[in-house]
């Protein structure tokens, strides 16, 4: 291991920032599903995974080792010796999560309507039907 670390110093760097790697892996997974799946529901799942990676990114950004929630002491002043972490990223991402939920629900609603109108949620079949309508 020490040999590996001296030969490839970035390995330690990678391991230390594992949270960001999780974000990247999730992001790419979501992206890949978006690209490769033709099923509209699966596409939405992919989109959700993709968005979730961003949520994680924000949350992991706000985390400080040993940090705690920014709750003031009983007299309204910071408690000495306590490490506070910034609450703003979490607040922001709450908003983003709400947005994500809204997006998913609109997407699912559309998928339902598409199923009613086309009888399928497979994109290639929808395309075939559209191509038929065009010709």
């Amino acid at each position, binding site marked *: 291991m020490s040999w590996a670390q001296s030969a490839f110093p970035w390995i330690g760097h990678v391991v230390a920032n594992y949270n960001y790697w999780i974000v990247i892996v999730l992001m790419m997974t979501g992206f890949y599903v978006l690209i490769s799946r033709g099923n509209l529901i699966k596409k939405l799942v992919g989109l959700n995974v993709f968005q979730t990676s961003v949520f994680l990114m924000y949350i992991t950004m706000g985390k400080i080792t040993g940090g705690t929630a920014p709750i003031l002491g009983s007299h309204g002043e910071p408690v000495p010796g306590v490490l506070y972490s910034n609450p703003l990223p979490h607040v922001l991402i709450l908003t983003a999560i709400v947005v994500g939920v809204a997006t998913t629900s609109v*997407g699912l609603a559309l998928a339902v309507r598409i199923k009613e109108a086309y009888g399928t949620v497979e994109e290639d079949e929808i395309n075939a039907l559209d191509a038929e309508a065009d010709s």
Partner: protein
Amino acid sequence: MTQHLPVLQVVIPLVLAPLCVLVRHPRAAWALAALGSLCAFGIALDIVSTVLASGPLSYDVGDWAPPWGIEYRIDAVNAWILVIVSLVSTAVVFFARASVEREVEASRVALFYAAYLLCLSGLLGIAATGDVFNVFVFLEISSLSAYALIALGQDRRALAAAFRYLIMGSVGATFIVIGIGLMYATTGTLNMADLADRLPGVWHVRTIKVAYGFLAVGCFLKLALFPLHLWLPNAYTFAPSAVTAFMAATATKVAVYMLLRFFFTIFGAAFSFDVMNLDMVLMPLAVAAIFSMSFVAILQTNVKRLLAYSSVAQIGYMILGISFASVTGLTAAVLHLFNHALMKGALFMALGCVAYRIGSVHIDAMAGLGKRMPATMAAFVVGGLSLVGVPLTVGFVSKWYLILAALERGWWPLAVIVLITSVMALAYVWRVIEAAYFREFPGDRETREAPAALLVPTWALVVLNVYFGIDATRTVGVAERAAEILMGAAP
């Protein structure tokens, strides 16, 4: 009261939207939407005159001081965007009353106007806010309502188009959120002015460059820059006529504004062009967009789709203006934002009139309409000429500045490209004119001129096309001011 105008601008439509759902009655919902649009337009006019007279406005939402609170900050650039959006929205809402009754089920009309107001509110919010995360929130408000609006189209393909737009729009918005997050991680602030202050210190940080990349691609997606425009043609084609007119004239414009805000105000022109070489990215894409999309437009048979592709080409002109990285270039781009909104609004509304009467916007279905619907087709012709860039229309003014900007940089081949593509624009506009005026109307159909309820708003925009084509001093003045602000040459 007046000091609250910047936020009222956004809040009024936002509050009226749920009211639409509550009243349920189509006409009442329309009245609310009209009220919201008119309020927004009135406020925008007031704001723009204030901003031009006495400099940028700043408003702290909930009295939380920036950079912690959300600040609404309005200078000449976004005041101008507010005017564009609310002007078009007002014209479209009056057009929509008759058009939507024809194209949307009665039970959904109230919901339509609710979504319309939400979309308007979102677009105005993007323009008004001075907080980058707020931009994302409003972007999603406008986008989600836009998906719903598009899905209300009569053809079932509208659903598929809306779904694809949803996927693409969400990816774009998420990219923007990633960019914002990376910026926040590096600088610890979300306020635009604050970011602009702090970013020069961290130019060399790789995170910032990555943030820039995500923001760029996200904006490109939302503004439908070639080759990320694939969602746009179907969305515009199958959406209800009023929605197409509204979206074409506002949504992409606001996205361009976002691009300008991020890359000029926040990152700064120096970073964008000297460090990131943004011009080297934008220019080829813009030229490719103008050429290939004009060519595609020439080959279309559905006129709505034809104009949709033309929109992508026209966005290319704006991006081309930006890529010149000069005050003149930005003037051209900002000017074209307004002018293109006027022409595409007018054109899509004229098409809405056609759809209202004959139920189709296929080029063959429009044969001989010049005689049957003279006022509608005359509006289309004037709008089309403006699109081509004929003198005395706004299109000419935009192209004039674009060419001046190209020559100023000594890139005359680009000036030539602008001129050549004008001829291509003539070719696709001509195809419609040829069908309408030089082909025989299939005689068995009873077709009359569109009702005044549709024609008046359409012609209002057409007249503006000509008015601002002749008296361009006002629009050019604002655009120049905005360009100077963006280039950092003026406060």
